[in-house]
């Protein structure tokens, strides 16, 4: 009976061809499809094969245009005669407005789920026939489990039972206990990082590093080191730890960013590098500094018209192609408003929520730089604080602290506080004195005066 099911209900070749056409013509559509579909979602084996060719190319950083897919298929011996070209062209000509690709992707996914449901019905029917209707409880239990898996919207949806949670907790504590013990012996108690290095020993100690899925917000006033902080972080992550990361800058040119790196990595004053007022020895030091940048995992994307949607597609692309572990957005206030009717705080809230989701979905660290008001406050701060995992403020040390604060007197040349306003995983309200050399664009933990 179940075999009489009309097959045409189970697939939608038009949607499959429209999505493939869009992938062949638009990189954004390719990113969407790459993230939402698998070859098994396609009913037609031919369409599944073309999709697989596209995703393989994309993983190798080749945009899957019609030309590249044709060449790849030809190299692999999949397209060998003029008829294959006609077939591919036929698919390519199912044009859509590329921004509608999600609609067609959803149609493919729906049909794919429907096919799985029919398979479930067929297998249930066969089980009933085999067991001649005996052991009803067992049949229903097995069917329920399969159906639950099928109705879950995402494959990675997972519910922890009390036993799962207890086991997870036990394993985590045991792992940390053993690690602490090992490191106590090896490194005299210094705990290794759980995430990416922050570039500051004291911040590493409090946070154990920036962890995948974390949203970090760094606030500073104009001209008080937002970009220097971003590039200092990039140095720790991409240059010193050789991890891949993406830096989105909304206001600086490629040349400006490149020159800043010269200063950061060579410790030669930025103004002198900019004006070219350097001697030959310094020139050689700067060249050596750039060779460190060349071997690093730093990817830069100057993007004056950045929108929250664009950050998503850029981050997805770099995750697939470069396996980035972190993305820094410098800075959020310069992002284009996607709805001019919204108030400033509403826009910031939406941006921050989007970035948090992005961090969790891609399992990367996202750091957003935001601008503080002149009085050191942050617009929409409460909402941002709710969303983020770590909120930092970079602010000059007030003159009175140098006279009145006994703690600050214990440091050599501190000039800025890095304040931990919120820390989901540890202590907050901590002020870390740092030394920020504006001219060299460098930052470091302020040194303690040895007694």
């Amino acid at each position: 009976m179940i075999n009489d099911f009309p097959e045409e209900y189970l697939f939608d070749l038009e949607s499959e061809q429209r999505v493939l056409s869009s992938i062949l013509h638009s990189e954004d559509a390719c990113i969407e499809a790459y993230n939402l579909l698998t070859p098994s979602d396609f009913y037609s084996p031919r369409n599944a094969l073309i999709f697989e060719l596209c995703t393989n190319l994309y993983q190798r950083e080749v945009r899957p245009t019609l030309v590249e897919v044709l060449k790849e298929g030809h190299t692999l011996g999949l397209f060998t005669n003029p008829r294959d070209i006609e077939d591919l062209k036929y698919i390519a000509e199912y044009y859509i407005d590329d921004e509608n690709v999600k609609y067609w992707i959803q149609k493919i996914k729906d049909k794919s789920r429907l096919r799985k449901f029919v398979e479930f019905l067929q297998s249930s029917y066969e089980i009933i026939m085999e067991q001649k209707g005996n052991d009803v409880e067992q049949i229903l239990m097995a069917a329920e489990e399969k159906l639950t898996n099928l109705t879950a919207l995402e494959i990675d949806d997972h519910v922890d039972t009390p036993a799962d949670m207890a086991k997870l907790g036990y394993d985590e504590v045991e792992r940390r206990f053993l690690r602490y013990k090992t490191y106590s012996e090896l490194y005299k108690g210094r705990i290794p990082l759980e995430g990416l290095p922050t570039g500051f020993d004291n911040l590493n100690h409090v946070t154990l590093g920036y962890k995948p899925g974390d949203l970090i917000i760094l606030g500073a006033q104009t001209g008080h080191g937002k970009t220097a902080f971003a590039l200092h972080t990039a140095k720790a992550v991409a240059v010193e730890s050789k991890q891949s990361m993406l830096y989105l800058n909304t206001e600086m040119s490629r040349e400006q960013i490149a020159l800043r790196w010269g200063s950061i990595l060579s410790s030669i004053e930025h103004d002198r590098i900019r004006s070219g007022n350097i001697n030959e020895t310094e020139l050689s030091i700067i060249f050596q500094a750039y060779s460190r940048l060349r071997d690093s995992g730093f990817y830069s994307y100057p993007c004056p018209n950045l929108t929250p949607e664009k950050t998503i597609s850029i981050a997805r692309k770099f995750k697939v192609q470069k396996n980035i572990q972190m993305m820094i957005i410098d800075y959020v206030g310069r992002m284009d408003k996607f709805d001019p009717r919204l108030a400033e705080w509403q826009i910031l809230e939406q941006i921050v929520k989007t970035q948090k989701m992005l961090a969790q979905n891609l399992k990367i660290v996202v750091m957003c730089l935001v601008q503080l008001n002149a009085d050191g406050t942050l617009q929409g701060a409460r909402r941002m604080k709710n969303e983020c995992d770590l909120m930092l403020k970079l602010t000059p040390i007030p003159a009175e602290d140098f006279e009145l604060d006994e703690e600050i007197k214990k440091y050599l040349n501190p000039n800025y506080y890095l304040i931990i306003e919120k820390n989901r995983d540890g202590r907050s309200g901590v002020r870390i004195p740092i030394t920020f050399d504006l001219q060299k664009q460098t930052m470091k933990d302020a040194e303690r005066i040895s007694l």
Partner: protein
Amino acid sequence: MDYDKKKKKLYDETVSLIADLGFRNRISFDEMNFLLTLLDLIFINKAEKDLITTLKKWVQTNNNSEIDEIIKATLLATDLRVPEAQAKCMEAVLELLEARS
């Protein structure tokens, strides 16, 4: 048909035409690959104007001389998608064009 779709159609038709010539052995596979790569450079990657100008100059003056054969061989041996290779190739082609004139 709007402009965007017309552009896509033009691209698809051109790809299909070049590939068909290759698959039917009317042009060699090297020639097919070169033309397809060039098409992507122009349509997708917005090729440098210099590249197009140089190639046009060659096509307009090509009289199948020995130097023209060398230019063609140089072009077919270059992966134009690699900027450094493309720049070197264009430099060589310009030198050859000058030598011929």
